[in-house]
């Protein structure tokens, strides 16, 4: 469980987040949705500590993130996996080396155990056999999947994904969503996903928070999205005429 209380964040004069309160639950896929520029990435980076909030608190279960000492923080880091919006793969390392990196840094497994774990993770994201390629040699979608493999290789308790399926074809996108969902349930972890993909919202939105103009405009589950009367949310989710018609039909 991750809880945020009164998170505010300004860059200079611009206030990007104006007071966010939310609970991201364990064993569920928690979604942060919102328009491009709504502050999803900023909120995620505050959750993992890459940005310090101007105001407010982040709790990892009973641990107050921003007042932890160095050792406690390092320990917590071991429990965190993250997929960046831009992947952030190490481009002078091969795919396998990328995925193995957290293990190389922190685990005392033998090389063969590590390689086995790496291969497991790569096959979970359907990338068997890509071990020796470099990130520049594989497609954007494949890079994304390598990023996911790297995020889950150390068996995190908290998983953060910034737009895990943007730039993927619908089929692969669904596979990735299901994969994240499966891992979340299987290992009972707290997963936070940034997305503006409506399929994800409908498929894996256990708990959704809709960011708009720096505030949480709406929160609920994927089942509640359909019934919601919130105009802003409806404009965002059912943006295309096709989806609007679908919703109308569902109502009848």
């Amino acid at each position, binding site marked *: 469980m991750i809880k945020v209380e009164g998170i505010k964040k300004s860059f200079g004069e611009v206030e990007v987040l104006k007071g966010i309160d939310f609970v991201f639950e364990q064993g569920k896929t928690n979604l942060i949705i919102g328009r491009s520029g709504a502050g999803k990435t900023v909120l995620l980076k505050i959750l993992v*500590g890459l940005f310090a909030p101007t105001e407010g608190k982040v709790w990892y279960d009973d641990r107050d993130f921003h007042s932890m000492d160095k050792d406690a923080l*390092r320990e917590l880091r071991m429990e965190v996996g993250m997929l960046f919006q831009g992947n*952030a793969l190490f481009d002078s390392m091969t795919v396998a080396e990328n995925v193995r*990196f*957290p293990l190389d*840094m*922190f685990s005392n497994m033998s090389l063969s155990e590590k390689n086995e774990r790496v291969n497991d993770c790569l096959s979970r994201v359907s990338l068997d056999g890509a071990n020796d390629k470099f990130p520049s040699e594989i497609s954007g979608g494949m890079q994304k999947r390598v990023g996911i493999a790297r995020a889950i290789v*150390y068996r995190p308790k908290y998983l953060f994904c910034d737009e895990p399926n943007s730039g993927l074809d619908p089929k692969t996108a669904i596979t990735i969503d299901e994969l994240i969902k499966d891992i979340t349930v299987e290992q009972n972890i707290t997963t936070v996903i940034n997305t503006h993909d409506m399929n994800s919202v409908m498929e894996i939105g256990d708990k959704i928070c809709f960011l708009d103009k720096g505030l949480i405009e709406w929160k609920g589950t994927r089942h509640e999205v359909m019934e919601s009367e919130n105009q802003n949310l409806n404009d965002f989710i059912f943006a295309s005429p096709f989806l609007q018609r679908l919703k109308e039909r569902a109502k009848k």
Partner: protein
Amino acid sequence: MYYKETIRQMYDIGIGSLPIVFIISIFIGAVTAQQFYYQLTGTAIPTYYIGYIVRDMMIIELAATITCLVLAGKVGSNMAAEIGGMRQKEHIDAMEIMGVNTSSYLILPKIIGAVFAIPVLVCIAAIVGIVGGYLASVPTGLYTEFDYVKGLRSFFNQRYVVMMFAKATVFAYLITTVSCYQGYFVKGGSVELGQASTRAVVLSCVAILIADYIIAVVLTS
């Protein structure tokens, strides 16, 4: 991981810089010999002093300073660009989140690598410079091998060698810390990366020259 990375840095800095250090020091030795031969002809100072002058100039000042100024350009800009690129591509953020202590993981191997490799390079530069002085004067008939070698063996003071290693170590430390700092805290895009890399070189050079003067004052007083 740290160990492997340190070895890689030593190799890159040390072996990678050998050719340039070799070329520069051989010419500096040669020019020093040639120039002092010209200045000293017609004076009462015997020609064998040239060997002595070349040796001491190389050991006391030129080997360490010139080599490190060149390495500031070569190694410094490289380090700033490498680390700066990692910062901009969020590699450093990704490592931080994994729990890696990025400042020590990325910078420490470079400092250790440089602090070991650069003094060796400087030592090689001094020797090559002295050979350069020989090549410029003896085969061309300015004076005899006997004179040059006699000069080399006169008035030797071991303290100068200590001074050379002290300078080399300090300069190596300055180049890496200044350059890594510039890269680590880079913001923005490719223009800023270029600027950081330039700043790394310029600031390392200035730091080297200031340190050179301070070491000279401290170790000769």
